Every structure is written in C-alpha cells, then in structure tokens.
C-alpha cells in the first residue's frame, strides 16, 4: 500500500458544480497510463456517482460540509476513496442487480453504476464520521501502441 505522500487528495464543498472537478482529477491522474478511453471515462463516471451520493445523501448538501477524494496508484490499477461527513448508511440493500421493475425508476442507479464500471467497490466508515466509498479499477492497456518512445508516468 503506497504511503499517503504518494496520493493526491481533493477537498470540495457539497455543491454539484464541483463534480466536474472530481471528474477532471480522476481522469488527469490516469490520463498517461495508456488505458482504453472507456476505462478512463468509466472511472470518472463512477467517481462522479460516489461524489454525488456523498454530497446529496451523506452531507445533504449542507453548507460548510465537504467531500474528500483521495487517489493513488499507477498504470497497474488505481484506488479512489470518496468520503463524506454524513451519518453513514447500510449499503447491503443496494448490493443487487437491477430488475425490469427498476428500469424506468428515476433514481437508485448510482451504486449499481459504480459496481458495473469498477473492479471493486466497498463502503466503510470514513476517517471522520461519514461514509468512505472505495473504488478500485484495473484499466486495460490500449491495444494499438503508438510505437514511439514514452517516458514518465
């Protein structure tokens, strides 16, 4: 497990407009790994879902609450933690496949989307009181390599 010094940490207020910053951080972190574009997009989408939940269900959009994102890893795989200041919740009811009945529901897809796009999704108490969602993704290296000399991350 890498030292905290090898991780990037982001703190944002509980406002949906900052979801764009979450997406940008996660995608920029992984941009040079040579992963398939789909993997990078889906990682961003899962992080957006986790951060949306943290703001809405965790922090209930309360002023002066924050969401933390911590990210570490390399081309072999990344780990993203998203933590809120909410009361925590029991995620077990949401550990299920969506059924035909769910198809047209307006809500209730966030955790399902995270699970679909990530290799691992887990929930734990955060460093504070809230929920910490942990997302793990092992990207697929792009098939056609550019053939040039690549240096760096």
């Amino acid at each position, binding site marked *: 497990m890498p030292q905290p010094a090898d991780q990037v940490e982001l703190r944002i207020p509980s406002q*949906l*407009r900052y*979801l*764009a910053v979450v*997406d940008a951080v996660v995608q920029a972190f992984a941009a040079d790994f040579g992963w398939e*574009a*789909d993997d990078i*997009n*889906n990682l*961003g*989408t899962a992080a*957006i*879902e986790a951060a*949306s939940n943290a703001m809405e269900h965790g922090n209930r959009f309360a002023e002066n609450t924050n969401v933390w994102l911590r990210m570490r890893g390399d081309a072999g795989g990344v780990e993203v933690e998203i933590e809120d200041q909410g009361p925590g919740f029991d995620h077990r009811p949401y550990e299920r496949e*969506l059924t035909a009945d769910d*198809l*047209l*529901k*307006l*809500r209730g*897809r*966030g955790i*399902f*989307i995270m699970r*679909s*796009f990530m290799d691992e999704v887990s929930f734990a108490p955060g460093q504070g009181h809230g929920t910490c969602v942990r997302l793990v993704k092992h990207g697929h290296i792009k098939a056609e390599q550019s053939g040039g000399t690549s240096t760096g991350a």
Partner: protein
Amino acid sequence: MTIQQRDIGDVVVVDVHGKIMGGPDSDGLKQALRDLMERGAHKVLVNLGDVTWINSSGLGILIEGFSELRRQGGSLKLVHVPPRIESLLTVTKLSTIFESYRQEDEAVRSFA
C-alpha cells in the same frame, strides 16, 4: 448546462450542451421537457452530441421525459450519444428503452 430547441417538421430537437448532473444545474432541461409536453409536442429528439457527461440523476431527467411523453402517446429519442454516455446507457439497460440514432436525419425520419 445549456439547451437550445429547434423544430424540424413536427419533431422538436433539444440540443443539450455541457453536463447533465441533476440538481438546479439541470432545471433548464427538466423545465424544457415539461414545457414541450404542455405545448402538446409528441416527438422529441434529445441531441447529446455536446454533452460531456451525465450522472445517474441526469439519467433520471431523461427517463422522466421519456415516461411522461410515452404516457401522452408521444416519444423521446436520442441522437449523437457520445461513447461515454453510451456505456452508461448500456450498463443500466436504458439502451433497451431509449431509441438512439447516429444521424439526425435518420432520427427525425424514425418518428414518421
């Protein structure tokens, strides 16, 4: 998020730009879809070509429009769905209910 509307025959094309993230930022889209239904529009084509991303609450807005229009005998279809949103529609199986087209003319003809 920014939206613009165009009429092509009796099809209303809603061009969405930016991010569809639910919450106040997407009220414009919600309201636009409701207004269209009040005006009696039955054929609505949502152009997602300039949408950078959508989250699950944003999907809810599209589903609400879809269901409401269907109830009134109309339909809501999609055009120019970027790969990132395509993935989301696929895993959520919403691709089985939203008709989606690559070309606008093709999409418009499909309503006929």
